[in-house]
């Protein structure tokens, strides 16, 4: 992540899975272990005691690991104490707990890069920063894809190509993991001896990737949207989808790994002595999101749906990255299955 240089090759080994699991367990003294538990697309990143509890063959989770563990859904950002002497502001403690996220897919790893741009950009969020620095990310190349995945069209998967910004990359080679170290600290931490990969191993990895790439179901043209979006912001597909199907429930943006919007509000106890300034994940799909005193910039459901679709598929200028990583969560967890790629395709017609 921040400031770390691209890591040279040669820190790659093949080790058997048991050995790897043993190493992970050894991290428990210093780190909270967080890994995927459960099957298929309904897995969940949770604290685990060992890799035995985790299922590294999981396909997807509802909440994305990066967002859930780096940018908490609900947290205190300022505390105030009120008393006879007046009101004094106090900084809530900066999180110091070290944690390892094990088995983060390529899309979700890219999503963390996006969140970095948001929270470590022009202004630095101290809570995100502390968690980010205390989080060791072990990414994992996917073995299967779901029918809603489209990372291959965005360039964020299914195999992770980024060379930095995370700590370690795993590829399941059958009985062994191919472990690629991607950060300085991973080199210090990973002390397991293994077999250096040979040309054949790399070839096998490439073949697996090619096979995987062929199994994607989704296909749409992500390029050229810019013009369409700007010229037809009132396209009927937006209106129809919004009115007939969109519930404004905000599930889509809540599960989105790159959605960063949040609300800030004060929670005061009734003795008026303790005030907590909280932040909570918020959503552009909510009616009040863009309301100001004199009006509401997105009072129409259609306008809110459009904000979501455009923000994810266009508006790259904002952070220099696409807002979507192709994980398909917004489609899967939308109660009515609204699919932003279908909307985009319809608009391109």
């Amino acid at each position, binding site marked *: 992540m921040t400031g770390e240089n691209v890591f040279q090759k040669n820190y790659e080994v093949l080790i058997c899975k048991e050995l790897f699991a043993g190493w992970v367990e050894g991290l428990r003294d210093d780190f909270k272990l967080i890994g995927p538990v459960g099957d298929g697309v309904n897995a*969940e990143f949770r604290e685990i005691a060992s890799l035995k509890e985790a299922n590294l063959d999981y396909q997807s989770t509802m909440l994305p690991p990066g967002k859930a563990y780096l940018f908490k859904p609900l947290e205190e950002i300022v505390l105030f104490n009120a008393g006879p002497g007046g009101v004094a502001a106090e900084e809530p403690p900066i999180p110091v707990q070290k944690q390892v996220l094990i088995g983060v897919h390529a899309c979700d790893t890219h999503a963390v890069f996006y969140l970095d741009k948001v929270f470590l950009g022009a202004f630095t969020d101290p809570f995100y920063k502390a968690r980010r620095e205390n989080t060791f990310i072990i990414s994992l190349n996917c073995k299967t894809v779901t029918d809603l995945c489209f990372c291959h069209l965005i360039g964020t998967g299914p195999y992770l190509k980024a060379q930095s910004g995370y700590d370690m990359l795993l590829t399941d080679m059958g009985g062994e993991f191919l472990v690629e170290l991607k950060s300085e600290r991973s080199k210090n931490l990973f002390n397991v001896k293994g077999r250096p990969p040979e040309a054949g191993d790399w070839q096998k990895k490439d073949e697996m990737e090619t096979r995987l790439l062929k199994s994607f179901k989704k296909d749409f043209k992500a390029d050229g949207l810019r013009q369409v979006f700007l010229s037809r912001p009132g396209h009927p597909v937006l209106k129809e989808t919004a009115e*007939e199907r969109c519930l404004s429930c905000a*599930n889509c943006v809540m599960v989105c790994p790159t959605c960063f919007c949040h609300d800030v509000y004060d929670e005061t*106890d*009734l003795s*008026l002595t303790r005030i907590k300034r909280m932040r909570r994940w918020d959503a552009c799909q909510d009616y009040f999101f863009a309301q100001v005193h004199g009006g509401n910039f997105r009072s129409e459901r259609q306008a809110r749906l459009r904000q979501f679709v455009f923000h994810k598929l266009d508006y790259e200028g904002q952070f220099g990255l696409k807002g979507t990583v192709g994980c398909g969560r917004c489609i899967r967890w939308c109660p009515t299955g609204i699919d932003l790629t279908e909307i985009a395709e319809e608009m391109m017609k």
Partner: protein
Amino acid sequence: MRFFSPGDRKPRVGFFKFSCCTGCGFQLAYFQKSLEDTLKSFDFTFFRLASSSGTPEGPFDLALVEGAVTEPYQIIELKKIRANSAVLYAVGSCAITGGIPAIKAGVPEMEVQNKAYRTKLYGLTSLRPSVLGDYVEIDGSVRGCPPGERDLQEAMVSVLFHRKPEFAGYSVCVECKIKGNICVLVAEGLPCMGPVTNAGCGALCPSYHRACYSCFGLMGQANTAALKGKFRKLGLTEDEIERRFSLFDALETKK
């Protein structure tokens, strides 16, 4: 400090009950977490449930009114309460959406009565249920059945601060995701009302593996047609769908 501080006169609160289970009153006077501070920070100058002293005449810094309107005398009382109170919040689903008492809005009045009473009672004057907002201007709605702790606290704090309240207006799904529940509607096909229901409960039902039954009432701009469409796809019959939407929102659906 600008708000009521310990030396100040405590805000005078009146609590009123119309047609309901008194649960909102109990929530305020007993169940909620900040009970001690509530009892101490306010002067409950009228609260039948908790006190035999005091007068309903006011004046009140805050009037809390629970219950649906189902009797003519309640309308007169309500207008009086409004006139005597600086701030008036409707408390609980009965007062805000009609809640459970409004189920009978869908059936002819006498038909329901005859099922409950064998003889004709001369005192019976029940009307089609309606809500506080139909008769007076309300300054806010503390939603829920019973009212959620977050909004209840916000209501009370707003009065201590002399400021406008900010009640939750988003969907239950937002709270549900914040809790990290696997969605029971998407993952299991349970007919969850979360997407159209106003937040404030902390997504209790889905957290306990149950489909939300909308006890906080519909949120503003709820797209009920879209959710009904989804329920149809799940295989619910029209009757079943109608019942899900008429449990706490009968007035809305029976318009």
